[in-house]
């Protein structure tokens, strides 16, 4: 890990809303002495007093391009109406170390929680430098000056803009211990401010990966082995003769066709006949095989993830015993923007324009494919048309780099929807077996869980990603064990919004409901009885019960189901109100969410994240299923991998519990509890326990 040295640079910079160049002041890279020793963010103040705050995290809809600048602007005492942002790759000067290690990834709901303090310090330090510059210019005491709304005002009411002071401020030493504001004085942090990126989105001006334009750019369409693990055996390059394609080249596991238009390239790609070497074991692989293998894996001991007390002895003594098996399928990310990347490779350098969650990974694969030094590689992040974990991967980057290298011109790779659906890194299929013992009026006395599925950290000592949400339990249970069996089917798997919790919270929260039923108790009261030692979780559960008027659904004939999820330091409880009509049709009317995520930078963005996560998770719960036949994915587009549309979208109501704790993440926590909240409601409505997802596999009548 490199430690950044302090330096200050003048920058010629163009700021939004201006034409031409203005001389601005750049502050940073920024040294942080605390646990984030090399957080670096650039701040530019133009002469006309616009402040541009660099955002070194991927903007994929979660709102970092507004929330991160809000943190800086608060301490800087900036005029929010004249703040804008610029996206930067989390690389070099913008490297961040912290909760995500040195990976430089936007993921794990960590952007706010890892950057909150560093960005406050940065804003405060920049403000102090501006005040000092003003004091020196006017020959007054700094204490006689007030910074507010991007102006500095003297006690005599004389005032000056930040922009007019930026150059002088930039010559000053960076204060080591800038004075932070008392949170009670916050006027930007905590406000539901409009997002900075919306005005461009609604005019079609935002530049997503697919929208990048580079002079002389060509386009590439790809065809990858339909069977996982297949390699190109043979293709006839002469196939492009007589077509509009300019080049055809082999890429890892497939072929890229390059043309002056994406549509032309795609048309030629559709007519390609490519022979692939298919791994024998993959040729016959089906979802049925995977299911059987998971069942078999569950019968093996696996590795112990957790042990509390003596669950086996406690189980033997339990008067009530319950067992259940749960199953979840592979899932695709299906971001609205398919995989895309633009690369311009020359013998000396490479530029990459890409919607990515991991600029550092982009840099690394570019280096590997060009042999260039990282100092010759520029990564320009674009807006992401959805990420959800898929755009951490770099398969599409490699393709663009190889294609550009081959043709000597900039190339933009765009995947067709079918390529995107069939060449994802899927949320892994899993099975889990749970056993519970209930004592006489003592609640759960034993919990024994085992899950089996592909590992996200294969070969690792302990796969905390795949077991997140499975262990530890959110509840107090005196005797408990959890085991995990690693399975491998050769199907690519990856990070899918909320990762292991996406399946594990379904297992755990369904089973808690089953235990409550076996104990003859109300599911919400039963949960509360196992949360007596955790005030925050209990408070969230009580709040959601109030919001939903637990036990008294609004819609006649509807039923309610509850579920709880944890992510980082955040706690979320959901209650879904669901009807199942006489024809077995399921309708999710309303989803109530009570969230404790510590302090909040922008409450509206937090609510939007929860609303969106409920829809994302509900889509998976209701219909999401990627199935495998002959080693290939059956689904190809939104007709056979449907997403929720307006007509089936429930109303999501969110309450954020007020907290003085430091902010925690919110991007993922809304996903895991919705499946069990809905299936628990279906049980309450019909007496049918949904143990397999998606729910569309069942017929209720």
């Amino acid at each position, binding site marked *: 890990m490199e430690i950044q040295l302090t330096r200050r640079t003048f920058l010629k910079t163009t700021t939004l809303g201006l034409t031409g160049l203005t001389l601005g002041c750049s502050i940073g890279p920024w040294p942080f002495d605390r646990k984030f020793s090399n957080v670096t963010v650039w701040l530019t103040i133009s002469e006309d007093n616009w402040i541009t705050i660099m955002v070194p995290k991927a*903007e*994929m*809809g*979660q*709102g970092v391009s507004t929330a991160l600048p809000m943190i800086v602007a608060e301490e800087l005492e900036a005029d929010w109406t004249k703040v804008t942002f610029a996206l930067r790759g989390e690389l070099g000067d913008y490297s961040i170390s912290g909760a995500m290690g040195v990976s430089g990834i936007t993921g794990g709901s960590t952007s706010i929680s890892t950057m909150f303090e560093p960005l406050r310090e940065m804003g405060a330090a920049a403000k102090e430098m501006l005040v000092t510059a003003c004091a020196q210019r006017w020959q007054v005491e700094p204490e006689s000056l007030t910074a507010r709304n991007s102006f500095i005002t003297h006690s005599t009411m004389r005032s000056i803009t930040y922009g007019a002071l930026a150059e002088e401020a930039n010559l000053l030493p960076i204060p080591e211990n800038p004075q932070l504001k008392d949170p009670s004085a916050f006027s930007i942090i905590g406000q*539901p401010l*409009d*997002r900075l*990126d*919306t005005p*461009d*989105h*609604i*005019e*079609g*001006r*935002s530049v*997503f990966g*697919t*929208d990048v*334009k580079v002079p002389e750019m060509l*386009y590439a369409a790809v065809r990858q082995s339909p069977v996982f693990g297949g390699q190109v055996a043979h293709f006839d390059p002469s196939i492009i003769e007589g077509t*509009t394609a300019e080049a055809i080249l082999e890429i890892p596991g497939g072929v890229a066709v390059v043309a002056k*238009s*994406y*549509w*032309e390239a795609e048309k030629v790609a559709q007519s390609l006949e490519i022979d692939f070497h298919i791994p024998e074991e993959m040729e016959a692989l089906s979802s049925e095989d995977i299911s059987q293998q998971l069942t078999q894996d569950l019968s093996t001991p696996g590795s112990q993830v957790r042990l509390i007390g003596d669950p086996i002895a406690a189980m033997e003594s339990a008067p009530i015993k319950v067992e259940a098996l749960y199953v979840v399928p592979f899932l695709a990310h*299906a*971001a*609205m*923007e*398919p995989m895309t990347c633009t690369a311009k490779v020359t013998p000396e350098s490479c530029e990459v324009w890409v919607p990515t969650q991991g600029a550092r990974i982009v840099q690394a694969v570019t280096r590997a494919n060009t042999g260039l030094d990282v100092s010759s590689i520029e990564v320009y992040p674009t*807006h*992401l*048309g*959805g*990420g*959800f974990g898929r755009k951490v991967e770099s398969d599409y980057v490699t393709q663009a780099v190889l294609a550009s290298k081959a043709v000597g011109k900039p190339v933009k790779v*765009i995947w*067709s*929807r079918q390529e995107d659906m069939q060449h994802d890194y899927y949320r892994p299929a899993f099975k889990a077996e749970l056993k519970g013992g209930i004592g006489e009026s003592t609640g759960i006395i034993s919990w024994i869980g085992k899950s089996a599925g592909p590992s996200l950290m294969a070969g690792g000592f302990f796969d905390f990603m795949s077991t997140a949400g499975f262990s530890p339990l959110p509840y107090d249970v005196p005797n408990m064990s959890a085991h995990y069996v690693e399975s491998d089917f050769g199907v690519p798997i990856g990070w899918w919004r909320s990762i292991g919790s996406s399946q594990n919270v379904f297992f755990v929260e369904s089973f808690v409901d089953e235990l409550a039923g076996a104990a003859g108790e109300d599911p919400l009261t039963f949960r509360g009885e196992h949360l007596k030692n955790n005030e925050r979780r209990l408070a969230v559960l009580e709040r959601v019960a109030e919001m939903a008027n637990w036990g008294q659904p609004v819609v006649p004939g509807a039923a309610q189901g509850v579920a709880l999820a944890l992510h980082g330091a955040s706690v979320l409880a959901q209650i879904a109100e669901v009807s199942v009509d006489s024809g077995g049709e399921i309708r999710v009317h309303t989803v109530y969410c009570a969230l404790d995520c510590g302090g909040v930078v922008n409450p*509206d963005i937090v609510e*939007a994240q929860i*609303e*969106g*996560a*409920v*829809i*994302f998770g509900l889509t998976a719960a209701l219909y999401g299923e990627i199935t495998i036949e002959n080693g290939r994915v059956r689904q190809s*587009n*939104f*007709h056979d991998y449907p*997403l*929720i*549309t*307006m*007509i089936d*979208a429930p*109303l*999501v109501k969110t309450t954020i519990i007020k907290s003085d704790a430091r902010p925690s993440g919110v991007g993922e926590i809304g996903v895991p509890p919705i499946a069990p909240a809905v299936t628990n409601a279906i049980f309450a409505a019909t007496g049918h326990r949904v143990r397999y997802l998606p729910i569309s596999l069942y017929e209720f009548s």
Partner: protein
Amino acid sequence: MKFSINVNRKFYTVDVDPQKPLLWVLREDIGMCGTKYSCGIGICGSCTVFLDGIASPSCTLKVESVGRMKVTTIEGLNSKIGRSVKEAWIEEKVSQCGYCQPGQIMKATYLLSNNSDPSDEDIDETMTNLCRCGTYQRIRSAIKKVATNINL
């Protein structure tokens, strides 16, 4: 083959394969990238444009079929209702990643242009565009806000 097509009240002459879909002509030949590619089979709505005022997918429409129809894209959506829809999108804080939103805005403008007071059912029926970020309830609120303003 050369085609002259009317996009946002201006004629553009493009020399392309007659089979090339309007979406890619807009994006590659005319340089307007606000209209998005996502499914390519006309079901997700990301590529929605107006053809003579009717909201239609542009990813499945061959350029040779555009003929004299007037094409309106998000970049040229400046009608009174279109502006109101865009403003409501800001007020209701609809957008997340933003990729599908040009298509959603086109579809909502089409709905409100033909029905100034849409019911929930009308909204459900017309607003079939996909949004992976799950902004549906805010889209619904924004449409209702515009309707309220129209009918004041």
